[in-house]
């Protein structure tokens, strides 16, 4: 099939506009002259290439990957070193002071990071298992927040009017809500068994839901704002002019443009949620003993900060490293997706 118009610009009409551009080059030919198959670079691909050049973000990403592997394989790894997180090693404890025998909290070839005071559980195995709780709560609560925030934010921004007013007021209310106090109060009235789950599973489940529920307004606000600004763009009008329904516009025209801010806010939200989980476990309303959690280990370690400082340092470093890795990676993702940001 040949094009009916080979030279759409070659027409020399004596118009004032045409006269103004006597030497106008055929801009189409300038690009059309490329030889070989032309492969477009999608916005996602451009962002990925930018991210690949960001060393700090890549380091953060590598640490996150390692943490995920550790969390998934925690039972396997602790089996390999021959330790169980819940087994007592009272023979390792100085019976007089309750602190671990030996220097540096009882570090030995057998117990790589020493043992806990009093009951002598292996800290290395407990840190590995603690990573599971931290990442599980961090990721799943972020997922809850992202799903709620995206759906409600896009609905508020797209439909506007009283729908927007209602959702926005709910978001304002939730942002002003003292969530930590609410969770503490909630745990005290919560049953021990729920939906066939017992003990720590119930607590983890509730933490995911509650942290996610209080987190969605942050994403919801961003998504609403973006949707509001995009709703008036001409490509949305173009889709409507072609007969597109609301669902098509939401899913095909708006959502792809929301992916970038959603990804950025998710990577920023995960470390915050991990910290919240640690804080809750530290306050004793997180997972129940004997399940290991970093916050809970920190909390226990307070009583031994002078006699066994390593017990406090190890979970502290674990939390710090994880949060730092997520933040570095999140910063990198934001910079890669938004060329306008500084740096």
């Amino acid at each position, binding site marked *: *099939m*040949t*094009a*009916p*118009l080979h*030279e*759409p*610009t070659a*027409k020399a*009409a004596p*118009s*004032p*506009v*045409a006269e*103004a*551009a006597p*030497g*106008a080059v*055929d*801009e*189409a030919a300038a*690009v*059309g002259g*490329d030889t070989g*198959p*032309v*492969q*477009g*670079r*999608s*916005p996602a691909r451009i962002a990925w290439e930018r991210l690949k050049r960001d060393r700090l973000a890549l380091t953060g990403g590598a640490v996150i990957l390692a943490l995920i592997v550790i969390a998934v394989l925690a039972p396997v790894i602790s089996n390999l070193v021959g330790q169980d997180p819940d087994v007592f090693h009272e023979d390792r404890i100085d019976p007089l002071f309750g602190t671990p025998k030996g220097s540096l909290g009882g570090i030995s070839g057998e117990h790589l990071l020493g043992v806990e005071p009093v009951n002598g559980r292996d800290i290395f195995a407990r840190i590995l298992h603690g990573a599971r709780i931290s990442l599980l709560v961090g990721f799943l609560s972020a997922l809850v927040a992202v799903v709620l925030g995206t759906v409600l934010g896009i609905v508020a921004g797209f439909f506007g009017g*009283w729908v927007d007013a209602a959702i926005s007021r709910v978001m304002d209310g939730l942002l002003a809500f003292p969530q930590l106090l609410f969770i503490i109060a909630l745990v005290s009235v919560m049953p021990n068994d729920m939906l066939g789950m017992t003990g720590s599973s119930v607590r983890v489940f509730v933490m995911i839901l509650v942290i996610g529920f209080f987190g969605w307004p942050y994403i919801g606000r961003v998504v609403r704002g973006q949707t509001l600004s995009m709703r008036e*763009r*001409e*490509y949305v*009008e*173009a*889709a*409507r*002019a*072609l*007969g*597109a*329904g609301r669902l*098509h516009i939401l899913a095909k*025209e708006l959502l*792809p*443009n929301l*992916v970038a801010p959603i990804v950025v806010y998710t990577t920023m939200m995960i470390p915050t949620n991990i910290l919240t989980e640690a804080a809750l476990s530290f306050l004793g309303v997180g997972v129940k003993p004997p399940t290991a959690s970093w916050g809970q280990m920190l909390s226990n370690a307070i009583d031994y900060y002078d006699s066994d400082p390593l017990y406090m340092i190890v979970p502290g470093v674990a939390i710090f490293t994880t949060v730092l890795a997520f933040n570095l990676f999140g910063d990198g993702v934001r910079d890669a997706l938004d060329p306008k940001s500084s740096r």
Partner: protein
Amino acid sequence: MSNPVRGDGERDGGVGSSDPGRTAGRAEDAAPGEVLLKVTGLRKHFPIRKGLLQRRAGAVRAVDGVDFEVRSGETLGVVGESGCGKSTMGRLITRLLEPTAGTIEFEGEDITRLGVRGMRPLRRDVQMIFQDPYSSLNPRHTTGTIIGAPFRLQGVEPEGGIKKEVQRLLSVVGLSPEHYNRYPNEFSGGQRQRIGIARALALRPKLVVADEPVSALDVSIQAQVVNLMDDLQRELGLTYVIIAHDLSVVRHVSDRIAVMYLGRIVELADRELLYRAPMHPYTKALMSAVPIPDPRRRKDRSERVRLEGDVPSPIAPPSGCRFHTRCWKATTVCTTAEPPLEELRPGQQVACHHPENAVDRAPRDSGVAGTAQVVPTRR
């Protein structure tokens, strides 16, 4: 839905030939010169809401009583200052906005109150080219997705598949078929506008509303895009409504021109009549504002009209003739009675009590109401 047979000798394989399957069961195609679109008393008031209860505090009368017809095969240019309601008018006739009052008839069918579903088949016949080529293409979609969207949304399977048809359309608008997989960010403004044109023409519409199609482009590129639209019109028998504020562009492309002021049409005339002998003072003022690039031709211009002040607020438009606050010919009658749009000469409709180049409609009226002045050219 099958596509028409292309490549019939006369049209040289253009996108033009009308689809017999498509029009079956609907009104026959309007022959050239017949009325394709008829707009009567069209109004669009945007409510202004205030306070907690969203009480209605007033309305912006963006389009406030507009009547006109578009004939098949012609180009109607719509000009006016920013904020005169021309873009709103374009979005009303493509039914992207809900009219407050009035009727829109397309091929004799009243489409004013059709919903999204009812409009869908009509979307093939009425398309739009947008002003800003940077916001009219979704940055996350490839060229192929953008130009293929009309087929997917309308459930049309073109002969040879969507991809082949999109690549053909790309070459029709002067781009390379290899641009199929590229993203909008890889194109210049002029190329993006060509993509927008290809999308609008994909379903072979009858009426294309172009909202400032070239005002966002470089002057050198404007000529190319205008000429492309011109060629496509001739080839496909398109009818255009071109909204613009650049009088040179409008003069080049239009057969008839509507001049809008504050939501109303003040003059609607054939191009030659309008440019040779404008009747409405506002049209005259607009014309005299066009710079003449040739110094030798400059002395031909009799006088330059300089309008004072701004366009009044469309929330509370002036009484009577809306232009009286800035008109140098305004008299008492202009402040009280709104002049109707009347045909004072064949092919030239004007809404004015004291038209230029014609017999005064209210000769005994006196009393100066306007603040504008005529500035004689001194060089």
